[in-house]
């Protein structure tokens, strides 16, 4: 069932002053073209001027059967007959034919001549396009101006070419629709009115599609899409042109689709309904083969199938093929603002419309073909025309206007955020409706352009389909004649029923001819039986306002009714369709009519563009759009559970503040219904979002009331929102106590209550509440609701975070809990490292608690990047503490020992470090820092390369702790020899523990290669140095066990002190013997 709203989309009607009965009609470029029935003249009337004055009149060469206008190129193409032959012709420069007496040039396709336009006066020119077959139908691409011609067995594509006088001999080989930016080449041609004849149109036959057996009746072409329909079949394919030529066989293979069906000649094949989408349409049984005819450089065309649909006449319901015939095939492009800035030649959407007498079908082709809407007409439709905003159809007695979903598709192409919580748009599947039925008498045909609908009505002639109605009329008239005559006879005193002769006389309709001849004609201005009307549709904003008005009326009677929402959605799409269109400045070029010859004709620009052009109008539209979003928001916020989430995006798009939304949703005192689920959903989202907006106490308190009524369990989350900072804490506490009584205790609830107590400066109660739960549980509570501690973190990595009042209190009372909570939040990805830094800085504890936090994160984290970052940061902090001597003001949470025990990054301190830097050497705070740094250097994770430059700033050997760090680093780098020297220089007592610890395995040889010679040299210099001697002795003990006697011998000094070594040589030899 189609919903019919009695809107008024039609504003006014004009009658075009046509002298002879129009037979053919088409429109475009601000012009309506009329060919009188059987005539050989085209009359062009201006649509943009009041009264539709005649622009010009030009003769055709034969009798046109079909006319079609292309705005791109400003040409009219005709299929015309003359002396039983059929011709295809394109009429260009027709605007120069203002007075009929100018000579008209005629040439064959492609026959351009250098001197052809040397004449100073521009001239109308007819291009005759020869075809090997009889043309049946034509179509022009609204994007490129290319021409598609359907013959009985083929479809021929002609690309539109603009040849400037300079490049007539070097033809541009690129077809306009494969060229991504043809507007550039267009722009290259100077278009000044002083030299109007600078470019000449021509066509190039670029590709032929062979479709034997389909029997095309109508075609359409748009941006490479080719649609064709036969009596009961529709096929849409897409032509792709690729510049790299493939082998012919490959292509032939790809592009052919052979009919495998049986020969229907011998059987009565009952065709069934069929719909094949996308490449599946290849199986439709219609053979399509490509034959390339264009110039070599145009590359290859390939073909993909888009859509196939077949209908079957319903013989059982008495429908014949005649009554089921398809008509009104149309491919409709839609350009949108953002996409057209990226590539102005590509329409964002392409729609395909076609119609049966009783049903119309609208498909969206780009980005996956899909059926958008099926239009069930209330009566047989003769013709239908799709525009961006509306679908117009005519029956024999009415013009009807249906809503369309094109804007809903285009909006989604344009804005990927539609169908998220950010933005919304009525769905593509929203049921279409009829907006208006406007009665007319004897409608024949129709065309539409922008906001104009052109209608041809002819009341006094009888087209075949009206025959039966006429028969009824006649019999009615006969009846009237009969009774009239009977009355006359009776008046004369004769009863005709008694006289057979009179009876038979009366049964003859002898007067009916006369009746038929003088049948009352339809009232018309010009007095003849036909009229050509131009019906103007109202502006989108007017239609919008009317729909809103209607919806209000529906809302009064059925506040929850679907109709109100549906009308508002329709109104939304009406506005969208206009707002989404490209700005005329951004996109003038491709839609622009070429070569406006005179100033007077600049008025030909479509007025719809001029309308949206105006900034004020646009502001009005945008205001209306926001208002509509607010109303849709209201609809969804009050509506039932289904789709209630849409309240959020619509309210967002409306630009209403939360307080405004709240006031719109306040239930009336008498109303039984409370807050709708959509509204609560909206509030929830608003409060979860990080906004800078802090609600007034009044508003915040109202929110608490709303949630207490609708979703008390959400109160904790609600209170945690930064927007609720000014809520009255006493009130919240009361509510939370109720909640606790009802649902039992929970950590977030308790902590929220504690926060409220804190706001009331009730520290006693705060402490009581905080002590209700173990610290570990509190940490879990903070993970559950981080906003108890931090505000502003949820917006992602780079957003600013602030500590809450509670966090500040924790810093004072329970710094360990705060650090632990922060670590937990960090590890659960609730807060980033930088954000945590920021929090601690804001809390004024970047020198202590922040470092504790880093240490704790280092212990807990498993992420390598975080670990490396923290190792470096901590090294810097420790060095800083060591050098500046600045001690942490409060107690550190974790000692070196704690850290060594809890993670591997802190290594156990090497034994020689205790000798080098005994505990008493530095202050206790510095000692802690030194030990942590040493421990890090003892661990495996610390990157030495990163920390080395920092250590180099410390003066070597100035302090033993400095030496310890240098030696640690050098050791990590494998520079043991260097370390040995330094230790012997500054702290020889540590040398043996160092050697024992580090001179192992690969470094074992250093015992005798480095340490032994060093000790020998040093003891020789200081013979009384007991420390060195002891070390030498230890060294010799090790050496004796590790090397062979021969090697030992070679080590022996030859300065007469060999005696000292002998016992060790002996031990070495004995060990060797044992082995």
């Amino acid at each position, binding site marked *: 069932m189609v919903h019919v709203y009695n809107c008024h989309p039609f504003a006014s009607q004009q009658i075009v002053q046509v002298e002879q009965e129009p037979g053919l009609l088409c429109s475009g470029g601000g012009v309506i073209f009329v060919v009188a029935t059987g005539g050989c003249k085209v009359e062009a009337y201006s649509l943009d001027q009041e009264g539709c004055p005649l622009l010009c009149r030009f003769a055709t060469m034969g009798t046109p059967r079909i006319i079609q206008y292309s705005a791109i190129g400003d040409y009219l193409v005709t299929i015309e007959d003359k002396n039983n032959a059929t011709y295809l012709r394109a009429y260009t420069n027709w605007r120069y034919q203002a007075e009929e007496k100018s*000579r008209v040039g005629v040439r064959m396709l492609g026959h351009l001549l250098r001197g052809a336009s040397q004449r100073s006066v521009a001239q109308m020119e007819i291009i005759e396009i020869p075809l090997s077959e009889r043309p049946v139908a034509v179509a022009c691409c609204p994007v490129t101006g290319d021409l598609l011609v359907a013959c009985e067995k083929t479809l021929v594509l002609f690309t539109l070419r603009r040849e400037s006088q300079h490049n007539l001999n070097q033809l541009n080989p690129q077809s306009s629709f494969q060229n991504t930016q043809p507007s550039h080449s267009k722009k290259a041609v100077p278009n000044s009115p002083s030299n109007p004849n600078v470019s000449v149109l021509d066509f190039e036959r670029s590709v032929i599609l062979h479709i034997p057996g389909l029997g095309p009746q109508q075609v359409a072409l748009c941006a490479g899409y080719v649609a064709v329909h036969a009596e009961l079949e529709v096929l849409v394919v897409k032509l792709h042109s690729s510049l790299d030529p493939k082998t012919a066989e490959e292509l032939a293979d790809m592009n052919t689709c052979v009919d495998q069906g049986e020969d229907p000649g011998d059987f009565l094949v009952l065709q069934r309904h069929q719909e094949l989408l996308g490449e599946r349409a290849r199986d439709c049984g219609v053979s399509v083969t490509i034959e390339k005819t264009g110039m070599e450089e145009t590359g290859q065309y390939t073909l993909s199938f888009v859509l196939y649909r077949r209908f079957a006449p319903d013989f059982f319901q008495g429908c014949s093929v005649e009554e089921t015939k398809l008509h009104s095939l149309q491919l409709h492009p839609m350009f949108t603002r953002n996409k057209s800035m990226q590539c102005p030649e590509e329409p964002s959407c392409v729609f395909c419309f076609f119609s049966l007498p009783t049903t119309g079908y609208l498909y969206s082709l780009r980005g996956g073909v899909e059926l958008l809407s099926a239009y069930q007409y209330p009566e047989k439709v003769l013709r239908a025309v799709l525009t961006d905003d509306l679908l117009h159809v005519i029956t024999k007695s009415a013009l009807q206007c249906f809503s369309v979903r094109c804007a809903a598709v285009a909006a989604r192409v344009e804005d990927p955020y539609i169908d998220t919580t950010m933005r919304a748009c009525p769905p593509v599947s929203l049921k279409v409706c009829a907006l208006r039925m406007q009665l007319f008498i004897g409608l024949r045909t129709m065309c539409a352009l922008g906001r104009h609908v052109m209608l041809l009505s002819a009341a006094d002639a009888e087209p075949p389909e009206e025959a039966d109605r006429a028969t009824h009329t006649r019999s009615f008239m006969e009846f009237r004649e009969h009774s009239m005559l009977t009355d006359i006879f009776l008046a004369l005193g004769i009863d005709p029923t008694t006289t057979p002769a009179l009876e038979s006389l009366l049964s003859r309709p002898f007067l009916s001819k006369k009746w038929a001849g003088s049948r009352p004609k339809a009232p018309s201005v010009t007095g003849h039986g036909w009229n050509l009307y131009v019906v103007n549709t109202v502006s989108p904003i007017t239609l919008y306002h009317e729909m809103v008005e209607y919806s209000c009326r529906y809302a009064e009677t059925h506040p929850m009714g679907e109709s109100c929402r549906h009308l508002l959605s329709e109104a939304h799409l009406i506005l969208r369709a206009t707002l989404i269109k490209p700005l005329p400045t951004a996109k003038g070029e491709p839609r622009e009519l070429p070569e406006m010859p005179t100033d007077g004709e600049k008025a030909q620009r479509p007025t719809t563009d001029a309308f949206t052009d105006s900034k004020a109008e646009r502001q009005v539209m945008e205001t209306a759009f926001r208002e509509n979003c607010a109303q849709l928001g209201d609809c969804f916020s009050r509506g039932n559970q289904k789709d209630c989430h849409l309240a959020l995006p619509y309210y967002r798009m409306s630009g209403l503040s939360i307080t405004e939304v709240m006031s719109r949703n306040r239930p009336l005192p008498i109303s039984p219904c409370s807050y709708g689920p959509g509204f609560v959903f909206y509030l929830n989202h608003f409060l979860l979002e990080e906004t800078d907006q802090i609600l007034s106490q009044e508003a915040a308190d109202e929110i608490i009331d709303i949630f207490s009524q609708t979703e008390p369990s959400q109160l904790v989350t609600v209170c945690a929102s930064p927007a609720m900072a000014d809520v009255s804490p006493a009130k919240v506490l009361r509510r939370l106590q109720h909640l606790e009584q009802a649902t039992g205790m929970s950590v977030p609830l308790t902590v929220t209550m504690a926060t409220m107590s804190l706001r009331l400066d009730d520290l006693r109660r705060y402490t009581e509440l905080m002590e209700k739960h173990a610290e570990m549980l509190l940490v879990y509570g903070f993970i559950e609701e981080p906003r108890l501690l931090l505000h502003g973190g949820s917006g992602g990595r780079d957003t600013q975070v602030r500590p809450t009042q509670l966090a500040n209190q924790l810093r004072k009372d329970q710094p360990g809990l705060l650090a632990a909570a922060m670590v937990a939040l960090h590890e659960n990805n609730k807060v980033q490292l930088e954000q945590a830094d920021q929090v601690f800085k804001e809390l004024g504890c970047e020198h202590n608690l922040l470092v504790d936090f880093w240490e704790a994160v280092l212990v807990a984290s498993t992420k390598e990047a975080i670990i490396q970052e923290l190792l470096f940061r901590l090294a810097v902090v420790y060095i800083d503490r060591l050098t500046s001597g600045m001690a942490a003001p409060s107690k550190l949470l974790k000692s070196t020992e704690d850290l060594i025990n809890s993670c591997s990054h802190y290594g156990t301190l090497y034994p020689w470090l205790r000798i080098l830097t005994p505990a008493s050497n530095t202050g206790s705070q510095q000692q802690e820092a030194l030990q942590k740094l040493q421990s890090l250097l003892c661990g495996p994770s610390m990157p030495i390369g990163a920390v080395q430059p920092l250590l180099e700033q410390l003066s070597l050997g100035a302090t033993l702790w400095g030496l310890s760090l240098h030696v640690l680093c050098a050791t990590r780098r494998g520079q043991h020899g260097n370390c040995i020297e330094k230790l012997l220089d500054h702290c020889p007592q540590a040398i043996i523990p160092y050697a024992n610890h580090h001179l192992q395995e690969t470094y074992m040889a250093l015992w005798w290669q480095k340490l032994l010679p060093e000790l020998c040299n040093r003891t020789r210099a200081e013979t009384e140095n007991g420390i060195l001697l002891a070390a030498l002795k230890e060294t010799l003990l090790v050496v004796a066990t590790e090397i062979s006697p021969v090697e030992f011998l070679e080590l022996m000094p030859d300065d007469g002190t060999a005696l000292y070594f002998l016992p060790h040589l002996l031990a070495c030899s004995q060990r060797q013997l044992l082995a």
Partner: protein
Amino acid sequence: MSAKTSLLKVILLGDGGVGKSSLMNRYVTNKFDTHLFHTIGVEFLNKDLEVDGHMVTLQIWDTAGQERFRSLRTPFYRGSDCCLLTFSVDDSQSFLNMGNWKKEFVYYADVKEPEKFPFVVLGNKVDVAERQVSAEDARQWCLENGNYPYYETSAKDATNVAGAFEEAVRRVLSMEERTDHLIPTDTVSLHRKPRSASCCS
């Protein structure tokens, strides 16, 4: 009773410079321009007229006479209802070429029965003092080639121009098989003058 309008295609052929364009201009717009450009390719003009009760739209096709434009003009011979073979009386070569023009026309127009096809011969520029072709020779040629009507015209001073075109129309209409060429347009009532805008508005 109703009248019907026919669209009659009449084509002007003849050597370059014999005055085909001038004849057409004189007939349709009643103007004469001594400095007309060469016609390039093919051009046409329409003229509505009433002949013996028939509303006729005469579509006069002017062609480029120069040889180099042959490929541009010949495709449009097809569908002609009458051919006006034109020469200039001050140019004997243009007269001698008439046979070739006729042959070219018959060939490209694909005329089924050339002997029955209505040709009309025009000897133009009779205003010029020094004639090279006598009226006698012209009449003789017409007689020998199919008994074509011959008109001596001057586009410059409008001599015989309308007569020649009207003869062409009459020739076409007089042919018996004309009915299938008649293209019905709007019914024209007798009391109403054609091409008068006031009666319909």
